[in-house]
């Protein structure tokens, strides 16, 4: 023990230096590992952000394409007059004129208000809410012959708005030979839809 003490005293500095070197090496190792872990975490985080940014850009591209297609569709509909609300007053005047001109005294008609189309009204949960609106003309009565019916099945003279769509029409001759050319012998019962796409009002 007495002989060991001077040896320790003699080798103390190298031992301390060795211990310090080992501690420094360990610290360096830990620091290097920590640096690597931190860099790895940052890399993962930025890779996730990049993936999200790419997805966001892709979604923006798709939304842009869809919106531009939608605009083209709206222009097509506008060009065909399908965005313009049919003029029910003009339709009424048209029918009154025809009734007077063709002497359709035994013909009754009713122009319905604009309503959602039948598919939308019957099952609103079937799909995206439709902006289609329809006004239905119901014609009922007696006319002289089929030729008198044709002008009633056409849209009012100058109007190009909406889609004019005869949906149901029943004609039945009540007597084989009319007394005169204008004797109403043809019973008519028809429904005509006038459809358009109503865009929401711009605030």
């Amino acid at each position: 023990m007495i002989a060991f003490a001077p040896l320790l005293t003699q080798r103390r500095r190298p031992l301390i230096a060795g211990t310090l070197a080992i501690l420094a090496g360990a610290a360096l190792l830990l620091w290097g590992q920590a640096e690597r872990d931190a860099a790895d975490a940052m890399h993962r985080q930025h890779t996730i952000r990049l993936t999200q940014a790419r997805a966001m850009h892709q979604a923006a591209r798709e939304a842009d394409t869809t919106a531009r297609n939608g605009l083209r569709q709206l222009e097509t509909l506008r060009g065909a007059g399908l965005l313009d609300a049919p003029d029910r007053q003009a339709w009424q005047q048209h029918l009154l004129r025809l009734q007077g001109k063709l002497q359709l005294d035994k013909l009754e008609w009713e122009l319905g208000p604009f309503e959602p189309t039948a598919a939308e009204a019957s099952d609103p949960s079937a799909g995206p809410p439709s902006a289609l609106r329809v006004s239905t003309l119901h014609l009922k009565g007696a006319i002289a012959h089929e030729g008198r019916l044709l002008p009633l099945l056409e849209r009012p003279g100058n109007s190009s708005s909406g889609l004019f769509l005869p949906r149901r029409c029943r004609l039945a001759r009540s007597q084989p030979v009319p007394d005169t050319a204008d004797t109403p012998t043809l019973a008519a019962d028809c429904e005509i839809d006038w459809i358009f796409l109503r865009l929401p009002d711009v605030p």
Partner: protein
Amino acid sequence: MISTHNLLEASRLRQQADSALTESLAEEARARSLQTTTPRLPLPSDALQADFARLTSLQPFGASLTAFLHRLADALDTLPGVELSALEWSFAPDQLRATAVIELRLPASTVARPDLVQHVVATLHHHTGSPAHGQTTSLPDDQGPLRSPSGQADTDGRPVIRLELPVSAP
């Protein structure tokens, strides 16, 4: 040695992370720029698509009844003595299908022309482009009325046939 490897690896990862961040920022900027220039639709795009598809599919049927009546009149002009006694037109928007059921009064002399019904059907097919269904093929003979299930006689004794014609969009 291990520490040096870790530090080099950390440096490489940081470079890649910086590169990913730069690219992310650029992508985000491009997305934001695109979002600001994307036009706004007055309706949700899926609703617009559905309405557009519906309107464009219905459009051809707008003039279908008038066109059919004209074609039917043309056909009847070539069939002397054959009269339209009833017509029932219906259009099913969901199925995009129009159907016309017509009732024709044949001349009283139909007995003398047993092929008249086939001739009427062929003429209608020629003018309207629609094959008629439900036609009668047997006609009264000299021993009394023999009619098909779809054939009948009206009050003035003239045979009546009832035909169904699917109508395609003009």
